């Protein structure tokens, strides 16, 4: 962890949260597909990061987003779940030979297929928790599933686009 990394992770989180609460808050494609782009900040934490700090960061991040969404607890619960599942899922899908030290699981470093299989299930888990809690006792299971599926597709697409546009490509292989 050098000084550059120490700066870049918090800055990225702050920027993504700002984008989330100012631009993406009122966006819902067809009333079903929400964009939870701030999750990208959690997904791109270094692979070597331990579970406990990640859980605390996710809890705080979810809470801040909740304050602006008027949905106290929903983002918090779902983001905490994502942070808990992430190290487990990373272990499950680790490539042969394991990860390099200090690697971030980004699209540019790991490639499209790996990034999709990494981010999609995690974001889907997040969405299930989010919409399940939101519609507790009211919405049907089908509508929860529907919203979760389209939201996670939309979020993953946006996450890949953002990385393509704003992240430095790794030169050569």
């Amino acid at each position, binding site marked *: 962890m050098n000084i550059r990394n120490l700066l870049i992770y918090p800055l990225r989180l702050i920027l993504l949260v700002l984008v989330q*609460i*100012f631009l993406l*808050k*009122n966006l*819902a494609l067809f*009333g079903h597909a*929400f964009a939870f782009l701030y999750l990208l900040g959690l997904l791109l934490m270094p692979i070597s990061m*331990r*579970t*406990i700090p990640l*859980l*605390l960061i996710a*809890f705080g991040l*979810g*809470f801040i987003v*909740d*304050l*602006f*969404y*008027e*949905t*106290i*607890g*929903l983002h*918090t*619960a779902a983001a*905490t*779940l994502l*942070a*808990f599942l992430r190290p487990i899922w990373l272990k499950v899908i680790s490539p042969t030979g394991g990860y390099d030290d200090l690697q971030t699981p980004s699209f540019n470093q790991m490639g499209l297929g790996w990034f999709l299989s990494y981010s999609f299930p995690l974001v889907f888990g997040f969405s299930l928790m989010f919409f399940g*809690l*939101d*519609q507790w006792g*009211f*919405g049907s299971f089908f*509508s929860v599933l529907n919203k979760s599926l389209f939201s996670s597709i939309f979020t993953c697409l946006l996450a890949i686009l953002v990385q393509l546009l704003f992240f430095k490509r790794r030169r050569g292989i």
Partner: protein
Amino acid sequence: MLRILQFLYRIRAFLLFILLEVAAVWMVVTNNSPQGAAFFNSSNAVIGSVLKKQADLVQFFSLAQANEQLADENAQILEKLQSFSRPADSVYLQLDSLLMVSYEFKGARVIGNSIRFSQNYITLNKGAKDGVKPGMGVFNSDGVIGRVKSVSQNYAVAFSLLNTGLLVSSKIKTTNDFGSVQWDGGDASEANLLYIPRHVKAQPGDTVITSGFNAVFPEGIPIGVISEVNPDKDNPNYLQIKLKLAVDFGKITYVYLVENTQFEELDTLFQQSEVSNEY
């Protein structure tokens, strides 16, 4: 003993996860119950001011529409004023002046709004400083919008009608049968009218207005138009009525707040006579 401690230490991440998750769910539950103490919401000064900045910017683009709406409303008010001026040759009865002053109105601007969740809230730019109190009704020229939940010095948060926890006492205009309007968490342009007995001849196209019974809204504020009438499958005594809401919740910018100045007196009376009244 040492083994137990070692075991607990090994699953510390899982324990922390459970703890945080329980805390989050607890927040969801306390925030969504209407009486629950809500502290962290957008009536908080910092969050309110950020949302206001955002609303200021977005509002610029809907100024024309807001103007049009205000002009329409002015026209309606002028029309009403006309009907108050006495015709030259008629008997005039003075109404009880108490009746006239039992409602007080205030204006406010919407700075935060959501329609996509099953518990939606609206943030307004007026707070305790401007005389806004929890429990006031919120409406605009189209119809009922919600009810104030909590206030801070400068901002207020209101339950939107698009909140599954809010019931609004209402009646069908033509037949005067009363029931409650509740949103079902689905389509943002539709709601249900509950507790209308089966013998009532409700028809698609009938207007539904506030009943004036619950002492929050004055009588006669539109809520919506009936779009569908079916017998209720679960409870054969009632009809299942769907409303097309009068307000387009995606576009609300300016709203009115209404307070019943005799609310406390009514409330005490209800409590004394042990009548439970819905709000």
